[in-house]
């Protein structure tokens, strides 16, 4: 079996994001970038399954500018076998990314595609489901547990009501929740070794995919600020304020 893992480069989750003064987007210059957090879980799960002997090869793919490669290198450093970087500039909508990934799937013929459940920059939560639809594969979204069987996976999903378990045939697309596992750190020797692992570059133009934006971003603004509050001295004062000032209890 073969697993393809999709990793996206995003502003690090610890960074306090700031809106650009001209309202064209958010500030990305000189900002720390990292792999989208749940994509690390997707990589970890694929590598774990490989270590259990059920999978022969794990491939990481990213779509984005030159530097997006870093996310693939990081995946290679924790046990992924080889990487693919689809080079493209500018913002790609999830629909475009899913069409690009569809081409990569057609070329590489993986049995499973693992992805993050949501990118923490656009917060779209779409790409995995779209890819599954385009391939006519089943999907298991928001996975917090995966059991690999012969021709299927049993996946526990985090849903609003609690947990749901479904069985999806292979091939399928799985989108991962942060609770799926604990991603490992890359050791220095493995980071060095990863530099020698194959990383193929493909120009998005060569894939023949329509990536034209369908959504116009008119402006990006700061959210309204909350007016600053007060500190209360003790619990009695808190309850009094909630009762008589805020009138919420």
């Amino acid at each position, binding site marked *: 079996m073969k697993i393809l893992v999709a990793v996206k480069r995003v*502003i690090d*989750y610890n960074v*306090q994001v700031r*809106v650009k003064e001209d309202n064209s987007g958010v500030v990305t210059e000189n900002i720390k970038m990292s792999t989208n957090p749940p994509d690390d879980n997707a990589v970890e799960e694929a590598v774990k399954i490989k270590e259990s002997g059920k999978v022969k090869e794990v491939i990481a793919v990213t779509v984005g500018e030159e530097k997006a490669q870093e996310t693939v290198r990081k995946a290679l450093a924790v046990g992924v076998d080889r990487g693919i970087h689809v080079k493209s500039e500018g913002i790609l*909508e*999830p*629909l*475009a990314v*899913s069409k690009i990934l569809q081409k990569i799937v057609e070329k590489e013929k993986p049995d499973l595609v693992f992805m993050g459940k949501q990118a*923490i*920059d656009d*917060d*779209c*939560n*779409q*790409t995995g*489901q*779209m*890819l*599954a*639809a385009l391939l006519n*594969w*089943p*999907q*298991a979204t*928001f996975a*917090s547990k995966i059991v690999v069987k012969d021709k299927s996976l049993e996946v526990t*999903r985090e*849903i*609003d*009501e*609690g947990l*749901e*378990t*479904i069985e999806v*045939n292979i091939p*399928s697309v799985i989108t991962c929740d*942060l*609770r799926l596992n604990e991603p490992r750190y890359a050791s220095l020797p493995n980071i060095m070794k990863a530099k020698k692992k194959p990383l193929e570059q493909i120009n998005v133009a060569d894939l023949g995919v329509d990536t034209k*934006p*369908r*959504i*116009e971003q*008119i*402006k*990006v*603004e*700061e*959210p309204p600020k*909350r007016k600053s509050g*007060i*500190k209360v001295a*003790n*619990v*009695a004062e*808190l309850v009094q304020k*909630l009762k008589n000032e*805020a009138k*919420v*209890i």
Partner: protein
Amino acid sequence: MSVLLIAEHNNKEVKPFTLNAVTAASQMDQDLHVLVIGNKADEVAKSLSKVSNIKKVIHIDNEIYENYLAENFTPLIVKQSANYSHIVCSANTFGKNLMPRVSALLNTSQVSDIIKVISPDTFLRPIYAGNAFATVKSMDQKKCITIRPTSFDPAPSSGGSAEIVKEEPGESSPLLKFIKKEEVKSDRPELGTARVVISGGRGMQKAENFKLITAIADKLNAAVGASRAAVDAGYITNDHQVGQTGKVVVPDLYIAVGISGAIQHLAGMKESKVIVAINKDGEAPIFSVADYGLEADLFDALPQFLEELNKLNTIQK
């Protein structure tokens, strides 16, 4: 053109957020139709036909629709979509799982999690965990949109008399099967719609200590929430998580106990009307969004809080 809203329900009752989605959808176009896909869901179709903003209810019933498998729902929605300009549903785990599958097959770029309808093709949506708001215009002919339910008021559930039209079911997908749902049942109000929410974080230290929280929740008729750290540590189940990757809540009163206030947590609660923070670290970022901050050890503060509440003659429910 008309709007098609995909109803969320449990085959017996409409999920409350469907009514919030009705409000959002009818701001896109007044000609609002609702699609009920379910198993023996006649009561659901009937109750939706009484919602005043709804002009028509399309009901597709079969045992294969007992659970929300997107693979089974998608072909039905794609088929119906021919008659509509907008396909809409709630941006909760139901809609997040389903809508992109529909959107891809219709070759449209989905607009996720909108918090405002500016015009039928232009919407406001939070990005970067709510640290920025983007105004976006969809240029697709057909629009697939998920709405953040807590940003819209629920539509009145009576006053309407829409016709109910039955349509034929489709095939069951051979690609997957449903195994089980472990639903956490509680007598407390639902997190998403509760007037008061009290949440615990890593500061609670262990599952047992959530007693301190639930005792107050019972007194205030509040829902119980949690930070991701509290869920990860196993203090409480995942359905309680508030935040960027959990639920969004907008109660009249939100009480954060032993929660530091990471941006990913704030993303799920900072629109609450009144925020209280109880934390022993005076520098915790949660205080920056709190209307009332109490710098105290929660193990002292929570029992005192309950005691003070007990002294009150009346408490709003």
